[in-house]
């Protein structure tokens, strides 16, 4: 027997997903996270799972781990004590950033906390110009002085970021070697290794975050691996990264910055895998939990990638899934502002004190309270009935805080809360679709997270989306995504070159070098030749612009024909994103990118098609009145998810309850269960 285990540590819950590799059966577990030492909840969960299913530790053949340690470390400014070394005249770049202030109108908003205090940002005399030529040689003596000071400072990590090092890394390399020789145990990283791309501030920020995370993540992984060992599990764990794949712990230790946005990425990777299995290639993921809502767009079964995200206000330019996050979740707080307008979020009551109805001391009305008043949520079946819920308290809170000031009845107030939080989330979906040149109506909404399926019905209808897909365990979907992710690694090189025939050798030389690095990495990770894949991209722009678009590059040597093809791809991309292109304006390649993929989950039956078939007709196990906009309270059948089997079909209105989520089916919506036990909800729109 062998099993794959996924563990996703979230702010409120630690989720587990376990798959029997042969049978394909899936088990899930949710236990409260232990914030002080996350490994505590992890150990408890593993022991529980092993015991419950009588699994021997050595039968665990794969362990995937998603963690927010890196994210939280940056957001809470708890990175290791770090020193920055940069070119003379530029130490304040880290603080000046792009010179924009944090809030346009709020005098009291602050810049993100400094990653490195000013007296730990050291300068060294040296200069490379924009053509990669040394115009001032590296001053070795100054580095020796810096090293002398370092000894006394208690610094654990050093980030080295010199101007134009992406063109000429030698100066950074010498700096790093000199420091390493004296401080073999310090975490030292250089910008040309972390992110060999131009634009100095973003590179500096990314490199510095990588350095400050280094010691923290190394300690975390060390402790995690040791604890796992005590359970008897023998496999080496993998860690999720922001681009949706997984990393070996060795890579994660050197490049911890790549895990900074890993939290929601496994869910997207899981959705990609699930959808490809059932032939869906274009979809938008909608992951709504207690505090936040993460949305992302997947086109041709490839998630859109972004390199423009910030964490805790600091830019991180490693490739990551383009996930747009807003403060909208079950715990989001509803309030009335000075102008008398109802607002929802971004503040959240979280799990503690939580919604009013939890009775844990929460006094502010939340989205969950509104869902209870509208009877969309069943107070008797919260977390499978484990949690006591006081709907009456929710009702009174909405009456007092929302409905009475707005001079409307309580139901209308609760409905308003849902409408507004839905509008906020619709706006987020527009950001990842319309603003990227896609029409949401051409996409399927894949809905998960504890609160997702409760809201996705209305959101999909409002956006004109035809279908919603809800996986078998929406509340544990991210942990499940950990089981099927592949390893991947991105290699980049900035080199500005026009797309004219005369530069063909440049293109081939640079991609060959990137491929050499990729093969080296694949070898190190022991990826077998038949499990390897390589994808190439170019970030391109019109000459004179300072904004690039990624374009796919076909495999094989680049010749005249493929260069023409690439250029035309750029025109297409430009047309798609910006609505126009200029065919006779010179085009420039800026950043060469290569992604190496190692398929670790190949040939594994991770979710067998269900063979369960129904012998008697589907019947609801209960009925209740549920509120629907423009309809009022309607009597609805209530199903348990376990009751549903493939090919079941029912029409809205209706409710499906399961231990990790609640699914709301609107009037005029149809639900069917597919062979993978996903629920597919179909909207019918009049006139088409």
């Amino acid at each position, binding site marked *: 027997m062998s099993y794959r285990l996924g563990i996703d540590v979230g702010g409120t819950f630690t989720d587990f997903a376990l798959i029997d590799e042969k049978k394909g059966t899936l088990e899930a577990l949710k236990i409260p996270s232990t914030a002080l030492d996350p490994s505590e909840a992890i150990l408890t969960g593993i022991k529980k799972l092993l015991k419950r299913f009588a699994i021997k530790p050595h039968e665990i053949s794969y362990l995937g781990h998603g963690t927010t340690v890196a994210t939280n470390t940056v957001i809470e400014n708890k990175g290791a004590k770090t020193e920055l070394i940069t070119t*003379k*005249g*530029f*130490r*304040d770049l880290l*603080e*000046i950033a792009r*010179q*924009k*202030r944090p809030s*346009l*109108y*709020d*005098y*009291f908003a*602050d*810049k993100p906390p400094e990653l490195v205090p*000013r*007296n730990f940002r050291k300068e060294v005399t040296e200069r490379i*110009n*924009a053509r990669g030529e040394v115009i001032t040689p590296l001053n070795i003596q100054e580095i020796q002085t810096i090293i002398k000071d370092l000894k006394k400072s208690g610094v654990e990590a050093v980030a080295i970021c010199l*101007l*134009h090092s992406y063109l000429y890394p030698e100066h950074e390399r010498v700096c790093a070697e000199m420091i390493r020789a004296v401080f073999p145990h310090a975490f030292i990283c250089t910008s040309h290794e972390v992110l060999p791309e*131009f*634009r100095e501030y973003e590179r500096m920020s990314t490199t510095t975050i990588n350095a400050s995370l280094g010691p923290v993540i190394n300690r975390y992984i060390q402790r995690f691996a040791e604890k796992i060992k005590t359970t008897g599990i023998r496999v080496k764990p993998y860690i999720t990264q922001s681009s949706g794949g997984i990393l070996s712990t060795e890579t994660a230790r050197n490049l911890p910055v790549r895990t900074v946005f890993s939290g929601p990425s496994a869910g997207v990777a899981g959705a990609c895998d699930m959808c490809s299995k059932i032939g869906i290639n274009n979809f938008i993921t909608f992951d709504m939990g207690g505090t936040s809502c993460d949305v992302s767009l997947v086109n041709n079964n490839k998630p859109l990638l972004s390199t423009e995200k910030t964490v805790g206000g600091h830019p991180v330019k490693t490739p990551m899934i383009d996930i747009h996050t807003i403060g909208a979740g079950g715990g989001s707080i509803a309030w009335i502002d*000075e*102008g008398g*307008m*109802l*607002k929802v979020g971004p503040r959240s009551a979280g799990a503690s004190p939580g919604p009013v109805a939890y009775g844990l001391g929460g006094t502010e009305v939340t989205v969950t309270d509104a869902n209870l008043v509208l009877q969309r949520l*069943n*107070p*008797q079946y919260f977390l499978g009935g484990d949690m006591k819920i006081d709907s*009456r308290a929710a009702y009174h809170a909405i009456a007092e805080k929302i409905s009475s000031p*707005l001079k*409307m009845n309580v139901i*209308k107030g609760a409905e*308003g809360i849902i*409408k*507004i939080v839905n*509008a*906020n989330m619709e*706006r987020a979906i527009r*950001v990842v679709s319309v603003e990227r040149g896609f029409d949401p109506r051409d996409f399927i909404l894949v809905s998960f997270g504890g609160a997702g399926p409760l809201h996705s019905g209305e959101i999909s209808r*409002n956006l004109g989306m035809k279908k919603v897909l809800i996986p078998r365990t929406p509340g544990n979907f991210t942990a499940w995504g950990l089981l099927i992710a592949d390893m991947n690694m991105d290699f980049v090189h900035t080199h500005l070159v026009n797309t004219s025939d005369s530069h063909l050798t440049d293109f081939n030389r640079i991609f060959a070098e990137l491929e050499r690095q990729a093969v080296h990495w694949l070898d190190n990770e022991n990826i077998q030749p038949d499990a390897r894949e390589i994808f190439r991209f170019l970030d391109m722009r*019109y000459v*004179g*612009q*300072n*904004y690039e678009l990624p374009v796919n590059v076909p495999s094989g040597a680049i010749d005249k024909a493929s260069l023409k093809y690439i250029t035309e791809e750029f025109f297409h991309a430009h047309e798609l*994103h*910006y*609505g126009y292109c200029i065919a006779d304006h010179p085009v420039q390649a800026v950043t060469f990118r290569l992604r190496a993929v190692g398929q670790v989950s190949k040939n594994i039956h991770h979710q067998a098609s269900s063979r369960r078939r129904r012998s008697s007709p589907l019947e609801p*196990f*209960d009925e*209740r*009145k549920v*509120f629907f906009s423009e309809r009022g309270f309607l009597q609805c059948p209530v199903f*348990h998810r376990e*009751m549903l089997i493939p090919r079941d079909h029912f029409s809205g209105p209706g409710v499906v309850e399961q231990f990790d989520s609640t699914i709301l089916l609107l009037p005029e919506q149809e639900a069917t269960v597919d062979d993978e036990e996903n629920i597919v909800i179909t909207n019918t729109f009049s006139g088409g």
Partner: protein
Amino acid sequence: MMRKTSSSQIPFQVVEVHLQKNNIDPITVEVIGNALFSTAEAMGATLVKSAFSPNIKERHDCSSALFDKRGETIAQAEHIPLHLGSLLGVVKKILQLYPPEEIREGDVFVANDPYAGGGTHLPDITVISPFFYKGKLAAFAGNIAHHSDIGGRVAGGIAGDSRSIFEEGIRIPPLRIVEKGQLREDVLKMIVLNCHMPEQRQIDFQGQFATNKVGLCRLTEICERYGLQTFLSSLDELLYYGERKLRAGVKKIPDGEYSFTDYLDDDGVSRERIPITVTIRVRGDDLEIDFSGSGSQVEGAINVVESALFATVFYAVKATIDPTIPPNGGFHRAIKIIAPPGTIVNPREPAAVGARTDTCQRICGAILGAFAKALPEKITAGSNDASTAVVFSGKNHLQENRRYVYVEALGGGMGARPHKDGLSGVQVHITNTSNLPVEFLETEYPLLVECYELIDGSGGAGRFRGGMGIRRSIRVLGEEVEFSSHGDRQKIPPWGLFGGKEGRCGRFSLNPGTPDMKILPSKSSGLKFVKNDLFVAETPGGGGYGDPTERDPQLVLRDYLEGRILEDEVEATYKVILDPSKKKVDAEATALKRKRLNG
């Protein structure tokens, strides 16, 4: 197996709901408001992406907005507060010139003239599209972009020493550039022919047109979903909402009259300082802002036309009273603005306006100074109230002698705040553009940036310290460069509050530390730099808040160790004594010294 839960026992009474059709409720307004704001944002994103020139794309010097059919601003994507000025009056002006029955679906209007309506200075070009729903004019969508060159005497169009608007570039009164979907090539050609880089202008215009199209599509969707009547009622209600929010804030200010005068260094032509006087009168929830007493309009290019003044006042009021007031036309109804004609804050044609940002910044500062008396906890000390803009133009010998124009506006120190230090190296108030990355700049232009840093000791001392100014040094690598600039706060420093000290002044210099060193004027044009010249821009630091001797000695020590304050400030200004290692505060000696001072 399944247990029946008794859902009939609902813990509260179900209230049946009567749906109110065509009766606008706050929830629908919020949802439609959200959709409109998201539309403006989507337009802004389109503009940044579809524009060609780095000034729009990289520095985000652009904005987008929606208007109701009377021309009131309904929603603005907030990039640059001052742009609201251009947007405020432009649609109303179009409606004056072109009666609604002459406006047709598919039309697009263009404008940039501060006097004819549609701009606050010439490089900001506004593009407006009427929105029709089922054949009826229902709203407008528009955007504004700062074109890095619009012709004129000096490339860039913002030289501080221009003496009339005719020197500053091509003037475009509101006119139809697209007629029923058909681009008027002749008009476009006429405009771009007047610019130094016609090709870039043409592509930027295309981006601006595409941006409005995005807005129109989305407006159609909103109307389809909610119906035209609900849409129109929501627009009205959003304006009232803006007014209510503002009045709610004004009501909290003690009634009274609060005055303040601040000064601009000079106008770039004469050497006289220029007063900006503001008197704020609060009565209940009415707010009056009176600029009587401000200097006469000046010869140099720092005059502020009415629309720019309104945008500036709105910024300062919103930021001080309640940053969440929506930037829409509703606030007009709650603020009365008095600006005597012929003054620097309401000049007569053809006064030059290209460098009006410096004056707008000073107006904000003056408003804050006046509010300080009523709302000492809600304002900051004097900030880097200047725009410090520099323009380099020439030919790039490394790129086939292609012509280039490099524009940069530098941030500086923000004034200290009631409970916090001011931010360092930021743009304040009505501008908020980002810098150009050094590695990009050096790749594109024959220039080398030798330093980009905060200036030690530039923040004004205080219980809370002013933010630090910026030093940016640029070496000329090509044979020759033409330089123009506008800046201020180079003679009269940002003020401190409640005992806080002044921030350091800014300065432009050439080849400092060499025998050829020259201090350059803050407002200039057509200066020629030659190969290897080093231009150094230093921007002002913010003023301090509160008495420096009340500053936490540990913060003084930190500032000293981090090199943010100068060594002699520690004892002389802050009255803090360090122990001999200079790494710790001598608490006893400090307490004694401070006590003696107060005793």
